[in-house]
């Protein structure tokens, strides 16, 4: 995987320079909340053993996906 400068962008927030991963953690939060609402509405959480554990795993997967897409060369 080739690192890209657009991924490792240092975000500035009112004088604080935040680590690049933080912005991607925020980006991954959006699909996570959406998916969680969908799973909740459709009742698919019936097929999940530990809901919190599953949610954590889902979030990490989405974060990995966001970072992977963020480093794609076309960005």
């Amino acid at each position: 995987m080739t690192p890209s400068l657009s991924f490792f962008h240092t975000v500035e927030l009112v004088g604080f320079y935040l680590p690049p991963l933080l912005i991607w953690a925020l980006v991954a939060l959006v699909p996570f909340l959406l998916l969680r609402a969908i799973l909740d509405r459709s009742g698919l959480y019936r097929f999940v053993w530990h809901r919190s554990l599953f949610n954590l795993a889902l979030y990490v997967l989405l974060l990995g996906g966001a970072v992977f897409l963020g480093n794609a060369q076309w960005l």
Partner: protein
Amino acid sequence: MAVTGVIRFLVTLIAVVAAALVGWWLWNFYTLSPWTRDARVVVNVVDLAPDVSGLVTEIPVIDNQQVRKGDVLFVIDKDRFNLALQQARARVAQAQAQARLASDDANRDAQVLAQDSSAVSAVTVETSRTRAEAATAALQLAQSELGTAQLNLERSTVRAPVNGFVTNLTATVGDYADVGTPVLAVVDSDSFYVAAYFMETKLPEIRIGAPAEVRLMAGGRVLKGKVQGLSRAIASPTAAGGLLASVNPNFEWIRLAQRIPVRITLEDVPAEVELAAGMSATVVIRPPEASP
């Protein structure tokens, strides 16, 4: 009901295992990829000291002015050097006259000795010949002193050795400039580069000659660069001044990755980008381009 229980368990297990793998990849990518936020713009600075001592009579540049190679930066009082030059010229004239006289004497003595060996003693001939040689040497000495005086006069005008900018100009007209003591600094504008400090864990991914991207904190401009080389030594925190190593008897539970400076040359910096040494930058190094 038991089937649903197995499905519930399997779905969660697969999600957790996948998340663990992705998390592992993510961590490695984040910590091992060659990127750093700890980079700065560096430049060569010429500390300009005069080659001759004297009063500074003229500083035709102002602070932060752009100068080209060969531009006059400051002038040291020329009167003394002009006088020294006149003195050296007079010395040369004097030595020339003396050398002419001595060689005429030597030639005459030699001729007399050849015609009549009893008219002049061999010692006299020998003495006058040696005196002529000494006078020639004195002439050469005076000529080289003249050269030195000319050089001193030339060096009293100090010129810019590089293209760049005068920086931190604090000298004023009337200051006494000493030989070897810097009077002003010139930033070599052709020598900007980026020193990126990479954690040692990221070094295996860095190849010399690999393309690099530099994002300046100022304006977020992205500049192209190339890895020129990496520093082969950093100071050891336990190094002692003497011959014996001073080793701290500690075992570290937490070990911090050391930072190694990597030198990145900048390629075609746009004209509107004003670089200044000390600027912060973020650097990402890409893998070397496959040679076709």
